[in-house]
């Protein structure tokens, strides 16, 4: 994965369900197909939620990681 190709980011740190998903859903609309968006969150439920959301919407969850309590997701718009 090339970090440079991430063009958009949603900072959902400090927010709870369903805000990280809702904001990502809106932000991802600004992307062209195949472009990447990075989401930062602190909600521990977001790992499961983003996996489910990607499955429902068809966007690809490229990366899902956690560092020091901050969850990072990279999604590719379908």
């Amino acid at each position: 994965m090339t970090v440079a190709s991430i063009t958009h980011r949603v900072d959902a740190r400090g927010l709870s369900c369903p805000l990280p998903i809702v904001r990502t859903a809106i932000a991802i609309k600004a992307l062209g197909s195949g472009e990447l968006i990075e989401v930062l969150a602190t909600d521990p439920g977001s790992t499961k939620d983003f996996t489910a959301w990607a499955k429902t919407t068809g966007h690809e969850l490229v990366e899902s990681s956690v560092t020091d309590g901050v969850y990072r997701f990279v999604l590719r718009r379908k």
Partner: protein
Amino acid sequence: MTTITRPETYLPAALMDGLDDPVPDEALERVEEGAAKTGELLIICESGDLERTWATTILASSAAASGQKVSIFFTFWGFFPLVKPGVRITGTNWMQKMLSVMNRPGIDHAKLSKLNFLGMGPWMMKKLAKQYGVAEPGELLEMAQALGVRLIPCQMSMDLMGIRREDLIDGLEEPAGAATVLQMIADGATPLFI
């Protein structure tokens, strides 16, 4: 694409914060991805209780964010959250007016079904919500609207409670009744009675 008819292009602040780029116009269109595999969700909002209003607005906004078509039918006690902020007394006769005195309308004045303690319960709950980054039902309802969720007022409840169209928030669908709800379910919408 279904475009939401709203008075202005307006998104609640809770949606905008943290987004790097200005929200594109398309954000006001229903998120369509995945809509094909997930049918319509129909929430029948029958309770005006804070915790249930919360459940309704969280599920509606999440489903809409996942590309699902969502409608909420507001009826009986669940109708009061649709009353505009600032409208204190509704109804035309004394019984209807008393009803709104005893049961303060507006989504921001919803009571908890237990541990309400004359409003202390909801106050503490909202204080906690702020602390933990949880959006309030009112914000979530605005978000749901911005994401294309259809809000349908129950005509019978409007008549019974004497609530006029101008008492209600903007951007609602035409009031409808039981037959509309049943038709939506017959057409395959997943009903949730909250």
